[in-house]
């Protein structure tokens, strides 16, 4: 590789852009629901960092959840300290379709 190339400006991609590479058949109904009143009282909010698909984001000081990009790993279900999450797999056949992982 040339010096030129290796010096090129390399910036981390944002999760939303990275996820453009993935394929889903998104269910019309959410398979995960979050009781946001519990999030307000959640001291650590680990879902903001550890949901690999970035489904949990802060808007102002509110945690907003969207299920569409979920990769069905189950992490949020395990880490939520407030039991705020009702977690199911998407309806049969729906959801993420990994091909090269």
């Amino acid at each position, binding site marked *: *590789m040339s010096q030129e*190339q*290796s010096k*090129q400006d*390399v*910036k*981390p*991609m944002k*999760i939303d852009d*990275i*996820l453009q*590479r*993935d394929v889903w*058949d998104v269910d019309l109904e959410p398979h995960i629901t979050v009781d946001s009143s519990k999030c307000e009282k959640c001291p*650590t909010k*680990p879902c*903001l*960092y*550890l*949901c*690999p*698909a*970035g489904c949990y984001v802060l808007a102002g000081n509110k945690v907003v959840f969207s299920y569409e990009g979920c*990769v*069905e*790993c*189950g*992490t949020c*279900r*395990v*880490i939520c300290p407030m039991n705020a999450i009702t977690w199911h*797999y*998407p*309806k*049969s*056949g729906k*959801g*993420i*379709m*990994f*091909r*090269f*992982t």
Partner: protein
Amino acid sequence: MDVKNKWDIIIVGAGPAGSAAGYTLAKKGFDVLILERGRQPGYKELFGGRVYAEPLKKIYGNELSGAPIHRWVKKEKLSFVDGNKLVSLEYQSDTSTSFTTYLPQLAKWMADKASEAGALLVEEVTVDRILYKDGKVVGVGSGPDEAYADLVIDAEGVNRLLLEGLGLVEKLKPEQVAIGAKETIKLGEDKINERFGLSKGEGMAWLLMGSITDYIPGGAFVYTNKDSVSIGLVLHLGHAIKEVKEHISQMVEKLRLHPQLRNLWIDGDIMEYGGHLTPEAGPAMMPKKLALNGLLITGDAGGLLLNVGYTIRGVDFAAYTGYLAAEAAIEAHEKGGFTESNLSVYEKKLRDSFVYKDLTRLTGMQDLYSDAKMFKALPKLAVGTASRVFEIGLETPGIWNSFTQARKEAGFGLFSLAWKGYKLMKKM
């Protein structure tokens, strides 16, 4: 589930465990139904990148040569990373015991093998309950549908919602699992060969630890596939919930853009990104029993995975436990039925195999790897020593002096270091 509803055996999950069990049982002539929630086997699967072949050879024999094998691993590398510096240990060999692949491809191949042997694979069925009646498991349900069997084999993987529903295990705790996130980067076969110093068909497995995970116990991995590279991180969730400072995808991006690594793949394109949990606790995650009346538990669902830091044995362990479950079912059937006492031969087979032996012998390694203090100090010690030895200015530092200075900087007493080293060697 638009199929007949009484079977000899129903298997939940067409991952490595379920498909190996289905293949072995269908070959013996059992009437087997495999239910998979994905549209295709493998669509819900993500792993690091390398599979140990020997257990699969025991199951598939020569047929394994038809599997989607990308490269045979002939180069192993272990690196300690501290900031922008890294120290590596490399092992090269002209023999190989493991190969790289995409798990969705391998899982599809294994499921096809089960179908060819005569099992019926039905996709797009999410089993939502295991049916239990009069002291035994009698089948499974999905929404309004039910299907019945003399034996159910649970191969549902790490999240094991069904076992939780049955009350056989408690909900997973963060300390029991690790989260993995991964990018697959398309690069081209020749570029991979050139940049990683590989010949055609030869692969590399590379584990990195230290600042690459922000010193969160776990590690980073790099695997070469045929024409792509898999890179990613595994973080122990118990530590990560307390210590993580940025989004996990950004940590993977830092791996991709690491100054000492990025030139290997910087002109490649990210093909896919994803995340998955993996069992971490080994025996501590096992249900009390793996064989019950009408039920056998295999693979990740049973916590039957070995993670020793420098490598994960999940796929081969899962496949082999599926195979042993099938063998146990065959014996139980000959003895008159799938009762708990007849099926308990599964636990005996596990105990007599490498699976249990490795799990009980090597799990102390997991404790050491999740020892946060050591996890931080070791990379600092290695990199600190090497940078003193190699970055020569005017004076040429001696190795022992360099080591001593780095050891003090990393906060290790000589005796505590010797003690930890001794404990590690004993476990290995």
